[in-house]
Every structure is written in structure tokens, then in C-alpha cells.
């Protein structure tokens, strides 16, 4: 029986991952800001087959609460097989360009808070000498683009942090996985018209679970984003500056 902690458990992708583990009768520890929604999800996952479902409220930007939160989760579950960090927000880029406090808040939510949580969790994982840490970042962290570089900067910061963390924890047998989804059809992106590049959260969840079980370190989700991002990263600046992306 697997023990899973999910932070940002009400997000569309996290919910779908939780369902996949619930069917396999896992013990789930769900952490999120929206507690009424957490209760609905708890009921749902219990019926789907989860062995136990614990919930805890959390505010990503209350950094001083993170240590207790992580400790409680590890104490409740005993051994932790998977820690999935999935919380985040999609900032209004234009607002961030004029309001530095807004930019900082978004960097905190999408970047600093994740690193804070991982710092506490990494120590625990290192002690237990087994387990997986998966973090949902974004292809937006690969190259800054005018349309969302504040979000991209936060996600890119987490990705680089994860590279180092993966190297460090490989010594103690802990698997670190950075998941970089492309376009995912979730409430966060409800405003967009969806084309062929968009993936459903169910699909993304299946990919995540598979990569966790195979101890893969491939980030792009779905995999074709590797091709797209390789191209985007190598477009020379003088061309890049001329396009709207």
C-alpha cells in the first residue's frame, strides 16, 4: 500500500493523480487552501477506493507553517512513497509588470513556497532513504517569454532547484521528478480556446504516475513538448524578439 502526500490537492492535475492512487487503495494525505473543496475530494477518493484520506489546510505563502505541515504529514503516514507538489497560480502578467508587490507575491506562490516545502521534505526523504518527490513546474520555465515571464521565472527557479535536489537525493535513493506540462485544459486555463496541443488533466496524471513508477527523469508532459521547447529554446534572439509568444 502506497503512502502519498499531495500539496495543492484541489488542482485539476493533482486531483486526477490522486484518483489513480485511490483506485490502488493508497493512503492519501491531501493539503490545499480550499477546505470545503478538500472535503468533497476526500469523500470522492474514499469511494474510489483510497484506504485512508487525511486532509490539512495550508496557505502557500505562510512560509513559517511549512515545517509543521510537512512533519505532521510524515508522522501521520509513517513512510512516504510519493510527495507531489502541485499548487500554483497563473499570474496576470500585465499586472505584474506595473505592480512589483504583485510580481513578488506570484514569485512566492509559484516559486519560493515550493522551495520552502521541498527544503523540509527533502530532509525527511533523505532520512527515510526511499521515496519520490514530484513537482509540477512548467514548460514556461524553459525560456522567458513576454506573455508570462514572471510565472516562467518562478517555475524556472523551481526546475533548477530540482536539478540540484535530484543530484543530492540520488545518493540516498530518493527519486526526484520535475514535471513540465505544456498546455493543460484546467480551470486555470479556462479562458483559452483549446487547440490540438492541449492535454486533458486525466492524461497528464497518467503520464505522471507512470514516470513515478518507472523512476523516469523525463520532464516534458506530454513528451512532444520536448520537441517544441527544444525549438523555442534555440530560436535566436533577433527572431525571438520579433514574435509574440
Amino acid at each position: 500500500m502506497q503512502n502519498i502526500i499531495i500539496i495543492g490537492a484541489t488542482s485539476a492535475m493533482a486531483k486526477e493523480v490522486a484518483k489513480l492512487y485511490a483506485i490502488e487503495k493508497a493512503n492519501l494525505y491531501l493539503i490545499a487552501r480550499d477546505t470545503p473543496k478538500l472535503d468533497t475530494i476526500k469523500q470522492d477518493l474514499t469511494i474510489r477506493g483510497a484506504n485512508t484520506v487525511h486532509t490539512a489546510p495550508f496557505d502557500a505563502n505562510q512560509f513559517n507553517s511549512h515545517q509543521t505541515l510537512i512533519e505532521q504529514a510524515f508522522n501521520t503516514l509513517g513512510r512516504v512513497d510519493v510527495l507531489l507538489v502541485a499548487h500554483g497560480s497563473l499570474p496576470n502578467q500585465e499586472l505584474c509588470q506595473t505592480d512589483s508587490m504583485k510580481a513578488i507575491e506570484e514569485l512566492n506562490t509559484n516559486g519560493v513556497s515550493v522551495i520552502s516545502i521541498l527544503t523540509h521534505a527533502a530532509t525527511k526523504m533523505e532520512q527515510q532513504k526511499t521515496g519520490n518527490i514530484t513537482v509540477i513546474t512548467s514548460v514556461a520555465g524553459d525560456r522567458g517569454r513576454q506573455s508570462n515571464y514572471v510565472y516562467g521565472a518562478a517555475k524556472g527557479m523551481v526546475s533548477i532547484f530540482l536539478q540540484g535536489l535530484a543530484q543530492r537525493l540520488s545518493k540516498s535513493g530518493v527519486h526526484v521528478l520535475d514535471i513540465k506540462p505544456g498546455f493543460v485544459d484546467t480551470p486555470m486555463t479556462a479562458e483559452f480556446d483549446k487547440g490540438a496541443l492541449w492535454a486533458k488533466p486525466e492524461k497528464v496524471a497518467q503520464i505522471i504516475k507512470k514516470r513515478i513508477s518507472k523512476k523516469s527523469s523525463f520532464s516534458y508532459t506530454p513528451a512532444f513538448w520536448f520537441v517544441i521547447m527544444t525549438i523555442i529554446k534555440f530560436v535566436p534572439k533577433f527572431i525571438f524578439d520579433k514574435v509574440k509568444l
Partner: protein
Amino acid sequence: MKKITSWGKYPLIDANVNAPSTSKSLMNKKQTGIARGLGRSYGDSALSENIIISEEMNHFISFDDETGLLSCEAGVSLDNILTSFVPKGWFLSVTPGTKFVTVGGAIASDVHGKNHHVEGSFSDHVTSLTLIVNDQELKCSRDENPDLFHATCGGMGLTGIITEATFKLKPITSAYINQKVVKAKNLETALELFEQYKDVTYSVAWIDCLSTGDNLGRSLLMLGEHADKGELTTHKDGLLNMPCDMPSFLLNKYTIQAFNSAYYNKQLKAEVNNTIHYDPFFYPLDGINNWNRMYGGNGFTQYQFVIPKKAGKEGLTEILKAIAESKQGSFLSVLKVFGEGNKNNLSFPMEGYTLALDFKLNDKLFALLDRLDIIVRKYEGRLYLSKDVRMSEEMFKAGYPQWEEFQTLRKEYGADELYHSLQSKRIGL
């Protein structure tokens, strides 16, 4: 504004799309327009200038493993129910030909399946539902607000927004079906076989609607019972995908005739018995994602009618002849015998014969369907609202005599001013 269409890919409209995540948020903002699940209705019944999508409301609420009573939010899909409950030994009491529909949509269309003649339609297994009408949240069942319950089941979302439902699952010991496929050389034999096997739980016939003369209505009758042996394994995701619209000229009278002939002749023996998984038995087309693209960019429609038993062979023959003559054949034509209908105002099934035919949309099609309407009306039949994209107000009102009762009730609750689809406006509701 977003571009949106339903399964037949016609019409394509611009709409405001809203995906509330809780019933509270539905009540706070006065919602108007039409509720929509996974968009598997073929025509314009889930299209409106304002669309309320239920996909965020997709949670299970409770399950009683003694009685099989499941409560869930309306956006839960049948696919999801199967994945979660087949391993526990439970199956849907009634399922349509695709698992990609929501519970809310299944109730609003009061969908039927291959077991209609013995187990009725989807809503016959629903014990209660929660409906939001205006700013009221109403519990409806056969005892509580019964008139609203019978209007909402089969009511195409026009009485309000279904947010939750409780319904019965049926126990199974295996995920497999014991199947028998019997060849019928013409319509008469097919109808006799339906009669002969009327006690079998699941029955349906694929019918070649392009054959004529002595072969008119030649069919493959598919019968099934839940097997006792076999594991409780769920289905896998579809492996095939239709990546883009197929050029529409590829489906013409020659290719369709060839397909129908090959399909009928693929089984050489008069009768074949085997055991197959529930997925290919109930959902043969779910294995190909986006199969609706097969009909090309202009889209397609399904014409599904029911005529009373007394119209029987005569009525079906007249309709099949008209189709065969038109050469506007249909790939997948399905014939089924319905058992008695229920008390719902607008539910489609009634005791008799139902035939469902897919047609690629083209200039000549609607004229043919108008001709078929006249025949269906003559035999006191009606068309299925969930498939329809073009029937006239007169055709609707003739086929659904309880429409007045339905409309009076909508007015009583103020639902007529809030909930409407392109279809409801077209048919005078």
C-alpha cells in the same frame, strides 16, 4: 466567447462557457442557458448562447455497498463510474452506446441501452436528484416534487440544472459478457429473432439499410448476458484516434454499401457464441477516439425514431425502403425493440421498434429526413431529442403529446425564462 459544437459537429456556434465547481456558485450567480456534460448529444440540444459545463462537478458523494445506491455530482462520467465500480463488482443498470456521457446528461436525455425491453431506461434506476431552478435547490424523486422529477428525467436540461443524483448500480461477478451473434437474412427474420430472445437481457441488431428486395433489413442480432466467470477488470483507454476530419467524399454510396456488405458477411456461420469484455460489447466505438471525424468537416447527424409495436414490420419496411431508394445510406444502423415507456414527460422510449441511422450532412439530406418524418408521424412514432438537429415544432409536438404538461410546469417554476437550447427554441419550448 468560445467556439463550441456537439458530437455531430453541426452546428458550430459561439457561446459563453462557464464551468462552475460547486452548486453554491451556481446558485449565487443566476445562471441562464443550458447545462452541458461531455457534449455527446448529436445536435443542438446542448448548445445555447450561455453554456454551463458540469465537468468540474465530478465527485462521488456516497456509495452503499449493500444496496448499490450511488450518489454523485452530475458531471461524473459513466466511464469514471465503470473504472471505480467494476473492480468492486458493480455495473451500470443502464448504459448507452458510449461511456463518455455524464450522469446529468444521461438523466436529461433519459438514455436507454440494449436492455431497455427488460430494465427500462437510465432514469428508471434513479431514486432522487438535486435540481437548481433559479435560486432554489430542489430535491426531486418519485415522492418529493414528483412532477418536477418526471419532467427533469428526459427533460433535456430545460427544467433547471441537475447537480447531484442517486441511482442504483447492478451487481456483477464478471466484467465479461456471454455473447451470441445471430444472422438474420431480412427484417422479418430479425423481428422474429427479437421476439424469440425477448428474455435475454441485452439485445440489439446492426442492420444493413442499403440492402433491398428479399434482403431488405438483413441484420446481425447481438445478444448478451453478464457472464459468471471472468475477472472484474475495467476497460483500457482507446488505442486508436481519428487525428483529423476524414475527407468527406470517402464516404459515398459505394463505400458504404461495400462496408455494410462486408460487415454482414464477415460472420459466415448462422450463429456464433463467445465471451467478450463489456467494453467492446457495449462501447464498440469508444475504442476510436474522435470517431465522429470520420464523417468529414461538414459533420453528420443521427436520425433515431421509435414507432409503436403495432406499426411493426410494415412501418419499418416503409422507412427502410425510403432510405435504400435514396442511396444516402448509413454506416451504422441499429435496430432495437423497446419495452414499455415510463411516466416522464419527454422520455424517448415507448413500446415498439427504434432504428438509429447515421447520415453525413449534405444538401439532400434534410429533404430525405423530412420524408422520413412523414412516415414516422403516420405510424404515431417520434424522434429522439438527443440525436436531433432539425425536426420541426409540429413533428416534436405530434410525437410528444405531454409537451404541454412539461411547458406548464416549466412556467410554474420560471424555468422557461432561464433554461433553453437552440433545440428548445426550434421546437417551440
